[in-house]
């Protein structure tokens, strides 16, 4: 093997899809190389074939469904596309290791994490004795900056935080210093601050180890932060490749340009001039989740802690924060899916915090919700039309009028008037989210609460839906509470921002002021963790 020989060389790889789908190949004629100490990012939207490529290199494809039909995968010169199952077991974990997207489900829930790291050593280094293995596990856990490795090694995965779990996965991958580490969306399931820490850790580790990294991601921010080389995939094919500077700054392929264009950037709405009386005012709202265990031990979680704010008609308030900050609890409480322990929710002057029964049902039409997952928020067994007229008919509109309104709304959100008799599965994710918006608007609400309403969508679709929200708001004039973890998205659509941490609003103010001159340390921490942020600021300066 010569010095210049790459660790991984994929040549003309093709993976067939089962018959009867809209395209023949999950991956078609893909070639790429990964060198020592190099991080290669494969980037693309869902369905681009990026994860199939990663799984093919591990030979972890469900091979009855997804068959490698052509090409070669050379790992340190050996073609693993043709390796025997026994040889694959020798290579996996040893010369090639993988880090998965969701660290909670990727770890065995009933095995201690130390044992899970040790297992790699036991499989591939049978000559190591018990004490050596134990020492090596502690060393590895310290390497990935896990606190108190001796104690943590004896913990189970559910007892760790998301970031700690991903560190365990990384320790497992590094255990035998493999030639190649494949990371499939390793930070997507994590909070932004944790994501930034994990990316920094990966970079640092490569200065110590000799491995190459093949990283799969959908996020150009991650690419900007970490990649040495970028490969852009669309519909199973490579459309562009190059250094991140070149690809990000001067993309050649129209698809790459469109993708980069769609990445949300910090961009602010003009400040609204007038301030009318609030349509919604929240005063000292607190919510505690209580659970009683089998043996009677009581657990209390403070989800909301004296939250106060007000919302003017036509205004959008962004609620941002990490998971567990209470932003979704706030949305649920405003919609009265939860009843607060204390505090008031004044809707047009009336306190709705304690409403029940038919008064609650009547109030609900005025505050509507758009949910995160467009695949789950429409009843799969009911036609779109049925979902759209259900609410208005319940509140007294005749079926004929409700259908008319539904047709108008379909058009308003950019869909065909005559699509009302179709089922949800006939629509794409972005289209479904438009339908959900139409369903909310059919109630002619004064306030819309959108809970991570664009988070499950691909970036290009995300941008379209955001534009739709903005346009509708201009035309109809509802006020909106926009809950999101993505500060860039929030800056696009929100007039004001409330930053939440541990159930409290730590900072609230006009979007531009909060993001450009944050007063709180926590807000600064969140901003610093936004992928690609440092580079963007540098570019602006």
């Amino acid at each position: 093997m010569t010095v210049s020989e790459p660790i991984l060389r994929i040549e003309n790889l093709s993976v067939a899809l089962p018959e009867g789908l809209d395209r023949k190949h999950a991956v078609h004629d893909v070639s790429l190389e990964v060198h020592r100490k190099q991080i290669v990012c494969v980037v693309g939207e869902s369905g681009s074939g990026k994860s199939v490529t990663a799984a093919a290199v591990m030979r972890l494809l469900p091979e009855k469904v997804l068959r490698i039909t052509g090409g070669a995968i050379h790992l340190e010169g050996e073609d693993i596309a043709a390796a025997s199952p026994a040889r694959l077991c020798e290579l996996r974990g040893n010369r090639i290791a993988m880090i998965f997207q969701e660290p909670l489900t990727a770890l065995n829930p009933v095995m201690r994490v130390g044992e899970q790291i040790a297992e790699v050593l036991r499989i591939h280094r049978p000559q190591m004795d018990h004490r050596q293995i134990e020492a090596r596990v502690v060393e590895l856990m310290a390497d990935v900056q896990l606190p108190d490795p001796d104690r943590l090694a004896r913990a189970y995965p559910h007892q760790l935080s998301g970031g700690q779990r991903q560190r365990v996965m990384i320790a497992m991958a590094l255990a035998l210093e493999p030639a190649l580490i494949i990371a499939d969306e390793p930070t997507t399931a994590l909070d932004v601050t944790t994501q930034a820490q994990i990316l920094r850790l990966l970079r640092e580790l490569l200065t110590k180890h000799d491995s190459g990294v093949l990283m799969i991601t959908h996020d150009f921010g991650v690419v900007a932060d970490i990649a040495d080389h970028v490969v852009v995939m669309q519909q199973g094919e490579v459309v562009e490749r190059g250094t991140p500077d070149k690809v990000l700054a001067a993309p050649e392929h129209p698809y790459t340009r469109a993708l980069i264009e769609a990445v949300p950037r910090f961009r602010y709405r003009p400040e609204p001039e007038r301030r009318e009386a609030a349509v919604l005012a929240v005063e000292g709202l607190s919510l505690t989740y209580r659970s009683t265990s089998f043996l009677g031990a009581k657990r209390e979680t403070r989800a909301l802690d004296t939250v106060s704010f007000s919302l003017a008609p036509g205004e959008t308030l962004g609620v941002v924060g990490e998971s567990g900050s209470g932003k979704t609890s706030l949305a649920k409480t405003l919609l009265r899916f939860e009843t607060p322990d204390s505090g008031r929710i004044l809707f047009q002057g009336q306190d709705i915090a304690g409403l029940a029964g038919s008064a609650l049902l009547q109030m609900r039409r005025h505050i509507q919700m758009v949910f995160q997952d467009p695949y789950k928020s429409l009843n799969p067994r009911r036609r779109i039309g049925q979902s759209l007229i259900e609410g208005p008919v319940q509140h007294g509109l005749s079926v004929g009028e409700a259908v008319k309104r539904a047709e108008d709304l379909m058009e308003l959100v950019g869909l065909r008037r005559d699509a009302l008799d179709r089922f949800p599965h006939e629509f794409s994710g972005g289209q479904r989210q438009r339908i959900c918006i139409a369903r909310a608007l059919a109630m002619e609400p004064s306030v819309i609460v959108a809970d991570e309403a664009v988070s499950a969508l691909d970036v290009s679709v995300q941008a379209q839906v955001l534009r739709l929200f903005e346009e509708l708001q201009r035309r109809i004039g509802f006020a909106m509470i926009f809950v999101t973890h993505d500060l860039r998205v929030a800056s696009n659509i929100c007039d004001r921002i409330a930053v939440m941490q541990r159930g409290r609003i730590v900072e609230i103010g006009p979007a531009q002021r909060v993001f450009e001159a944050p007063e709180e340390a926590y807000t600064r921490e969140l901003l610093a963790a936004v992928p690609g942020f440092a580079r963007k600021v540098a570019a602006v300066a």
Partner: protein
Amino acid sequence: MSANGQAPSLARRGILIDALLTNRVALFSGALLLAIALSAVFAGLITGGDPFLIRPRLRLRPPGSEFWFGTDALGRDVFALVLHGGRISLLVGLFAALAGAAIGTVIGLLTGYLRWLDPVVMRVMDGIMAIPGILFAVALVSLVGPSLFTIVAAITFAEIPRVTRLVRAVVLSVREESYVRAAEGLGIPARLVLLRHILPSCIAPLIVQTTYMFAAAILSEAVLGFLGVGFPPDIPSWGNVLAEGRAVFQRAPWTIIAPGLFLAVTVMAVNLLGDGLRDRLDPRLSRAAKVSS
């Protein structure tokens, strides 16, 4: 596992027929079951004459071309008894399965949706499950006296908790779905949310569970007969045909084995039909829900 992963909607018409056509075993089982049901309905035409006809000269004849299942201690044709018995046994199975499904669904829907009701109802259901179903049925039937109603009621009682638990589990998972939340958010009253958005999700697992209960109920009727508390001897059912055979089993094993295997084939057809429906309608429903009594 496939890239598009989206299961086709079950909302379309004819899910049962659709399910049957895609599974050969289920199709065959369904056809067999239909044949058995028809043979029970037209038992008189097929076997001709009175199944109770006592012919002392022909007692305990082994199976042969004249008497397919042999004759019993009174010289009656066991095959004719079995075909006639199918009427009552299948009816008991059908009624018990439908009654259990209906009652269990109502309780399950309510207890899954009304949080305050849940602990009370579930303890009662646990209590019912703790009593061995067959013993309860034997005791009830022997106290009240055998009749179609008591036997169906006794078998149904033990099935209710299983349906309740199944429906409740579906309700608990579906009620957290965003589309149910969305309906609540539109101001739809709870009663309508249950009927429109939650009940339809229960239908597929209920169809499967009802099939299994049908099988279990046929078995239960047979066991009741075998233990001596089934229908009175003048009503032919699989249970009391088997009961008659017990006394003469050593000399004439066909008196139990022939009707027993006929019964087994029927129950197996129902179970295979249930498996086929489950694979098609509800791959996640495990057999764990079906701990038959």
